[in-house]
């Protein structure tokens, strides 16, 4: 699942608003058609968020957007593994701090068994969706950035538990992106090893439906993760062709759709060799 989880972190950006900073900055970024422009402009914004977190260390108003932007940048624009790991770690620290400031019991349960987390989640409601979702996506990205570490991989079931809780409140959360995360997480193991790609398929389909088909990265990951896992070339090629011909402009999804188009082109070019 090379970089998959961290790449989709960028989608979480759209939900953030940054206190005193211009409210539309994140939104503008997600609606930007030129990924290169965002790549070069975002670091200055990251440093600004660091400064704001340093000034208001316990304020989720800054912790949450900082976690989201660090996670997104690590996933999409960082090409250096050490840098990706550093940024993903910072994203997780920010998101976890925000969660722990607000939900101490859940925070303590994170180091316990999955059942303990489930128990603590029962006490939460939709007001905590953004906190839990941001932490879950930061945690998933951190695991991805440390995927050669078994201790990191061992934590994946806990991340799934958090996403499932989010989906139990809002199946369309974040334009269907919570579904995309679950799609990727459920397509890691083939059925022959006890994996449930049928669940992955359901999550990807849900994500596409939630965005009325405008979530092009959901289609790309559906092709890359599910169709390749099950060797379904027809589905793979159809999804990617749809992405290539689709209009990328969509509220909150334009930037990621542009990236999806770039990725779709590469995957489609490899199709014959992969499935032959």
């Amino acid at each position, binding site marked *: 699942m090379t970089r998959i989880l961290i790449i989709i972190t960028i989608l979480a950006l759209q939900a953030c608003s940054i206190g005193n900073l211009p409210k539309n900055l994140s939104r503008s970024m997600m609606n930007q058609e030129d990924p290169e422009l965002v790549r070069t402009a975002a670091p200055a914004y990251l440093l600004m968020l660091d400064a704001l977190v340093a000034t208001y260390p316990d304020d989720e108003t800054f912790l949450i957007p900082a976690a989201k932007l660090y996670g997104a940048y690590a996933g999409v624009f960082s090409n250096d593994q050490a840098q990706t790991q550093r940024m993903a770690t910072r994203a997780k620290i920010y998101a976890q701090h925000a969660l722990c400031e607000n939900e101490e019991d859940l925070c303590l349960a994170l180091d316990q*068994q999955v059942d303990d987390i489930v128990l603590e989640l029962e006490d939460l409601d939709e007001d905590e969706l953004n906190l839990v979702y941001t932490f879950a996506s930061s945690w998933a990205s951190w695991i991805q950035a440390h995927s050669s570490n*078994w*201790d990191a991989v*061992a934590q994946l*079931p806990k991340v799934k538990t958090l996403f499932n809780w989010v989906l139990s409140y809002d199946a369309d959360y974040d334009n269907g992106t919570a579904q995309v995360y679950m799609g990727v997480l459920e397509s890691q193991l*083939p059925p*022959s*090893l*006890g994996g449930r790609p049928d669940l992955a398929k359901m999550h990807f389909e849900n994500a596409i439906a939630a965005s009325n088909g405008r979530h092009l990265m959901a289609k790309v990951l559906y092709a890359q993760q599910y169709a390749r896992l099950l060797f379904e070339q027809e589905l793979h090629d159809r999804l990617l062709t749809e992405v290539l011909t689709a209009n990328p402009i969509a509220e909150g999804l334009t930037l990621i759709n542009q990236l999806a188009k770039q990725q779709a082109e590469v995957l489609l070019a490899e199709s014959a060799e992969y499935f032959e």
Partner: protein
Amino acid sequence: MNLFKTFLVSSLIAFASSQTMAATLKIATVVPNGSSWMNEMKAAAKEVKKKTDGRVKIKYYPGGVMGSDKTVLRKMRSGQLHGGAISAGALAHIYNGVQLYSLPFTFNNLAEVRHVRKTFDPIISQGLADNGFQLLGLSEGGFAYLMSNKALTQAADIQGQKVWVPEGDLIGNEIFTVAGINPIASPISNVYTGLQTGLLDTVTINPSGAIALQWHTKIQHMADEPLLLIIGMLVVDQQAFKKISPEDQVIVKQTVAAAFKRLDAINEQGDIGARAALQKNGIQFDTPSGTEWREIAKQALSNLTKVNAYPAQEYQQMQQLLKEYRNSQQHTATP
């Protein structure tokens, strides 16, 4: 004219054949993409292609897309596939020598394994060759341990447990039968659900496997004594392999063998990290007391000679080699 055309076409075909001595080895495995096994096997394929100037390509079908190990072997017989990266046990009905490293309580550590491999890898390779299989790679998948929902420090603790053994695993089946229980044989694909629903509560697996398959979320204890060694092998059908030129065969053998040697080190490191991760995740490591399990395994192995489940003579030779090695190690340790 028609005759001319036929000759022309024939000569073109002949020309094409002489030019494209290219061969593609189609190899399937249940190992998923992204795993260290697949990464190294893919690296080997890339290297083979480069070193043979594209004359030999290796095409993988990962993630069990071609079915279980058993199905892969059937498809190899029908010619649909040329090879498989499979568990050693899957080949036991073809040549029982593949079980040599996986017999219970044979090794105490990987140094012992590596010592005997120098002698026995060639024997296993020859045994497979005699049965139509070319062994290209053999690698240690790590030691498997008994993992359960309760501490299994004595043999009696296994009573009443719902113990999984892989389908068709004669050896595992016999051990638990001697221990006095009926193990539950099922494909690996059913184990996680079995652990979830309570149909199973005890498995034998290596630490990294337990995490990769997420079984670690359903177990609380690990009996900290290596029960058996997991072995993975990459074999190809000899007839298919012989279609490759002798020079290219050497390249393929060397390149794949090197990849599997790298895997030995990667898997060893992986299991060290995975053990620590299991402990960090609250799984308790229990030290088995006494030699009961070893006595049970001994009895099981004795019973299994009657059904020729493993080559008893070679196993005795291996035990002798291990004895000499252990003595030499003790000698070195106490100057």
